[in-house]
């Protein structure tokens, strides 16, 4: 039987995602110099989280760089500019392993000389939405 999903707000025929758990955590990296071609990391943040049969979502913020919250899972790559010229790149990725959510970051120098990165706190918010698998 065909149904028009555009006019149904919710019904006993359709399930959605419901909140299962949530956690916040962070990792810090001190201000430091990075030589040309060099990198810092992995900067590791983690929290115990059971994602069995759940769909995860992670949001991250690079406090000390800007105030935006960015969306994971997957990979976030941000080339931090200075006057529209890339200086350093932050790459952040998330994954589950052994009942733990990991959010790891690598900061790499994108210039031909030594740069100084600011102190950065990588703030993380994670959610598990239960799924009827």
């Amino acid at each position, binding site marked *: 039987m065909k*149904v028009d999903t555009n006019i149904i707000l919710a019904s006993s025929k359709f399930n*959605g995602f419901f909140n299962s758990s949530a956690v916040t955590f962070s990792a810090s990296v001190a201000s430091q110099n990075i030589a040309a071609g060099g990198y810092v990391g992995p900067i590791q943040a983690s929290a115990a989280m059971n994602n069995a049969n759940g769909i995860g979502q992670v949001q991250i913020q690079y406090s000390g760089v800007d105030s935006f919250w960015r969306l994971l899972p997957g990979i976030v790559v941000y080339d931090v500019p200075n006057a529209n010229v890339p200086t350093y790149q932050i790459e952040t990725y998330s994954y589950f392993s052994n009942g733990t959510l990991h959010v790891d970051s690598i900061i790499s120098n994108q210039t031909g000389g030594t740069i100084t990165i600011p102190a950065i706190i990588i703030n993380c918010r994670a959610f598990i939405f239960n799924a*009827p698998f």
Partner: protein
Amino acid sequence: MIDPTKLRILLPTYEIDQIIGIKTGTVSLGAPSASPGYTTATDVQAHNFGDSCYFAGIFTYDGGTTWNDFGCQIPNYAAPNPQLQTVDVAAHTDNTNLNVTVTNWYDLSHGTGTARTVTYKVYLLAKNKMAQPITPLASNQKLAYSSAFNFQKIFMKDTVSINVAAGATGSSATITHNLGYIPAIRAFFVDGSNNVYSLNQLQSGVNSIQAHLTTTTLVFTSDQSAFGAPGVSGNIDYRIYLDS
């Protein structure tokens, strides 16, 4: 005669996501070698909705002990160097099929290639606007809405375009939600052929799009400065939830 004082009907104020099907599958890939550096396969399963749809998926390659969302890769940090690309699962839907692509990367940092058997599970979700009424896929799971659970409630949903040329940076129009807190969101990229991609799986590809959230706004940006043609051009379907 009907006594309206004795009627108790609960009507939801906000919409919820609508799961219209569940797909599972297994893909086996041989061990990759240093060249070309990966083995890959795409598993195609028909949904026959006559329109593409949103999706959310998880996968395992250790027999179900560890599950990860599409787009996540478990790194290998063993000495001497980290290997970030390991096993990558991405998907897209078109008007007929769910297409799940599994890539098994050669571990260049450690000089090894491993055969993998990847099992995945995918929810198919109705889009903000489906082109036509659809027949949900039959399932043995209990796909029943219940007020006993705290379902994600859709506060805002719409489509915004994004067009960023190769070699440039750009963004979509800014979406104002004014919730006063950072909400949960979902977003999907819809290309010119009505194919739907999960936003974050595009991070490692040419069509790199990021979501930037504040307590009042949402905007999608793309940095194509390091990439050649074609740039990114399409629409982003988004949902902003009341839930934070």
